């Protein structure tokens, strides 16, 4: 599956947030001592209460994970972990993570530099094409490659497939950072006697380093959580092993022991990025209110090889999967399994993903509001908790909720509701990030102005803040929907018996090597995943007056 557990937007501020013009005070502006929160320091109690409720809900899975593990008993857990298998899995995971992260970072950095900072022909087309792999689930990419040739398997195959599937997670934040990075600095460095590469290394790279690290973190988290692609490529990681122990061996103890280790690895990655990323803190752009000038490097003779490189990259990451799926779709059905109605699976997918999108957005709204308007201890804590669920691979989360349902809420077991709740917890960070970014677009100042003009608080929220945040709400719902549509692992664990989503139907046929039958579902998944993507684009590029930050540049 294409793990969207870590949002690309987490490190790439959405287009709207890059508007410091109205937020940065002008020359000689007042910087009087101000309260922490613009609308008064204390948040209204309904807000605090709902945030607390959301936090508790988010913490439940972790609590159950720990309960489950302690129920198993530490001696058993340590014996399970001290197996040779654990070492193999650890080595596999580390090798894979290092290789894929390096490859993805290299590809993404090169591509982002060429698109944002050179006169590469056809930049507008490439900009879209390099992002398309995000809409193709990794299990589909794995399936297409392995259906083409059995040579794609094991570590090499996994590195190839995952690099092609995940590099946009690095590309997105790095490209955004490059767009923001002031090329005047580069020119100054050149003027001070630095060569082209020295200037890049010493001036440009430090500017985009946080974005690069953030992107690498997303790749790492996605790798730790990935199940489908590795299963197809016969590459053993913690996730595949946990799944096997749980579904085939019904060995809950082993599954939970390995889960703990996996969560630990995810948290290590999160913490590592936090520490390394913070080292560069305080290096923000100095004069962000200034209109940035972009200097485009002329490619010259290098144009042909660079364009060739882009053609190969998009050919491998988009062309191969899409054409292979289409090829299989044109073949006769090749299955002995009973047919799964396509329409029914599609409806299930849309209903589950849609409900999850609404639930996650509704839950994330108070948290985002608290964070933007009333920063403080509770806001920070809720942000950390959001991060924590980013470090929970989907499979682990699903197992924790299964355990929760069996032991504490049996009526929920094997229901669509539990699946929707799981999706909502899993993709909560996505909703939070885009809502937060859009709430920054609707500064408290505007709401205050509305109130000084005679609006009651509720009216100010309705007439000023909601219209401004609407794109963010849509973006948040669309992101969660997209992520839930392409989710496979948790769905396999939690899907009610007899029901199917597109992903589980695809998986059933794929497992049976019925490539042609599986392709029908893959095509619909990709098609559905593209729609919210376009919606997002539409909302962000929307018409006049949407961006309060632009106003000053034109004065």
């Amino acid at each position: 599956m294409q793990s969207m557990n870590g949002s690309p937007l987490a490190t790439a501020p959405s287009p709207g947030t890059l508007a410091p013009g109205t937020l940065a005070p002008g020359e000689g502006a007042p910087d009087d001592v101000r309260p922490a929160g613009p609308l008064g320091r204390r948040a209204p109690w309904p807000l605090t209460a709902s945030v607390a409720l959301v936090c508790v809900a988010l913490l439940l899975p972790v609590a159950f994970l720990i309960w489950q593990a302690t129920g198993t008993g530490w001696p058993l857990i340590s014996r399970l972990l001290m197996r040779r298998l654990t070492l193999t899995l650890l080595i596999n995971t580390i090798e894979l993570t290092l290789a894929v992260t390096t490859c993805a970072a290299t590809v993404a950095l090169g591509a982002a530099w060429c698109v944002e900072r050179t006169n590469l022909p056809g930049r507008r087309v490439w900009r879209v094409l390099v992002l398309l792999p995000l809409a193709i689930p990794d299990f589909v990419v794995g399936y297409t490659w392995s259906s083409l040739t059995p040579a794609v398997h094991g570590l090499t195959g996994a590195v190839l497939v995952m690099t092609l599937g995940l590099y946009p997670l690095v590309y997105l934040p790095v490209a955004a950072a490059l767009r923001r990075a002031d090329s005047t600095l580069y020119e100054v460095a050149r003027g001070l006697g630095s060569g082209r590469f020295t200037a890049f290394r010493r001036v440009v790279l430090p500017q985009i380093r946080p974005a690069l690290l953030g992107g690498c973190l997303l790749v790492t988290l996605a790798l730790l959580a990935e199940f489908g692609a590795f299963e197809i490529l016969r590459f053993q990681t913690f996730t595949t092993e946990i799944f096997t122990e749980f579904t085939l061996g019904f060995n809950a103890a082993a599954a939970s022991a390995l889960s703990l280790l996996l969560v630990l690895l995810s948290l290590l990655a999160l913490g590592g990025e936090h520490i390394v990323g913070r080292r560069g803190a305080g290096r923000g752009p100095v004069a962000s209110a200034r209109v940035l000038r972009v200097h485009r490097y002329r490619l010259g003779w290098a144009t042909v090889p660079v364009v060739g490189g882009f053609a190969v990259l998009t050919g491998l990451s988009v062309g191969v999967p899409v054409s292979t799926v289409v090829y299989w779709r044109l073949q006769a059905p090749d299955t002995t399994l009973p047919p799964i109605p396509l329409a029914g699976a599609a409806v299930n997918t849309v209903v589950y993903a849609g409900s999850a999108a609404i639930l996650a957005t509704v839950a994330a709204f108070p948290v985002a509001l608290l964070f933007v308007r009333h920063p403080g201890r509770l806001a920070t804590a809720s942000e950390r908790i959001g991060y924590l669920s980013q470090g929970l691979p989907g499979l682990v989360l699903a197992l924790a909720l299964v355990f929760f349902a069996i032991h504490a809420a049996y009526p929920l077991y094997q229901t669509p509701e539990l699946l929707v709740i799981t999706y909502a917890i899993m993709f909560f960070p996505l909703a939070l990030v885009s809502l937060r970014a859009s709430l920054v677009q609707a500064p408290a100042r505007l709401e205050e102005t509305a109130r000084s003009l005679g609006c009651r608080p509720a009216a100010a929220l309705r007439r000023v803040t909601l219209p401004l945040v609407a794109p963010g709400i849509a973006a948040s719902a669309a992101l969660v929907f997209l992520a839930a549509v392409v989710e496979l692992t948790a769905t396999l664990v939690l899907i009610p018996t007899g029901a199917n989503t597109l992903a589980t139907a695809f998986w059933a046929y794929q497992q049976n090597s019925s490539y042609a039958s599986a392709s029908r579902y893959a095509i619909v998944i990709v098609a559905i995943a593209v729609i919210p993507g376009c919606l997002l684009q539409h909302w962000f590029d929307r018409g006049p007056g949407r961006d309060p930050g632009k106003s000053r540049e034109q004065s």
Partner: protein
Amino acid sequence: MTGLSVEGLHKSYPGTPVLRGIGLQVKSGTLTAILGASGSGKTTLLRVITGFEAADRGSVSVNGTVVDDGRHRVRPEQRHIGLVPQDGALFPHLTVRANVAFPLARRDRHGRRPDEMLELVGLGDLASRYPHQLSGGQQQRVALARALASQPSLILLDEPFSSLDAGLRATVRTDVLAVLRATGTTTVLVTHDQDEALSAADHVAVLRDGRIIQADTPRQLYRCPADPQLASFVGTANLLEGTWDGKRVTTALGRHGIHAGLQVPKPGHVTVLIRPEQICLTPPGSDTVPARVTATHYYGHDALVAVRPDAPGSRPGNGKAVKGAPGNGGLDGAVLDGAVLDRGALGGGLDGGALGGAVLGCGNGGPGGVQGGGEELRVRVSRSDPPEPGEFVSLTVRGSVAAWAAADGN
């Protein structure tokens, strides 16, 4: 009648007292400027008046109605205070007309009032634009029209012109203030720009460290500031040491009368304020104070000239060298000039804006002050051909001066 009345207002954030007993009266229909540097508490005062922060103690009344007495407070939306924030804060999702119609009741939003308001600020033809399609100055005027549309008892302008280009600032300011005077609206202008405060307001209240240091007419504030620090804040100030004998003060520049109505300190050492435009430069003469020009800042319409009074016989070598004899002495003189010029430029004192940066010859001159230390004085010359550095001039002081008892008591 009092449009805005603030009495004994206290406000602190945990560990930081911000407002410490503010008292302020604004008469109906007048324009009062609240002038303060960064960190003086301007923003907090504004937020308490508008109702976004609660007062700890004291009271705020608008048109005779108490809106905050430290215990009960009226909600911001019921105070009828029109706020024009620094960047206008127009609602980006609404057209100009819809912005102006915002405070009106639903049935009036499509009536004539929004258009009348836009006509008033001279933007009737931009009604269907969006805020981002306007220039900064136009945004400010729309924000004003929007605030006026709500028929407020009081308009608060929060640094409304500081984000505009210098060229635009004066024009927009004139336009905005003309509208406010035409409508007879009680106005409070919050600013850190002393020129803006002095030129625009009927009264200026200077805020420092959470207190109103002085509230006066612009003229009185400029002529008789409450203390030397304030003197430097509201304009370029020459602060000299002097002695007061009960009738006149004596400084290195001669004997001067003091402003009428000034609280006279008891005889003894005093600090004397002489504004740059009070000093006349004349060709070197016999009965005046001789001085040498050390730097000239030329602005076209006038010039700010730094001069150093020459204590008779203190540096004869320099004088000779600059007069023209080449050689070592001349080189010395040139180097000295350069150094002096640098200091003036780096200190930023010549801009007249820096707090305390302009305190000269006050407290740091040691015994004798100006006379002994040879401190620089700033002189405004409204001629198109000000004297060049190195020239010798004479100084005479016109008019009366302000004086305070010397701070260090020597």
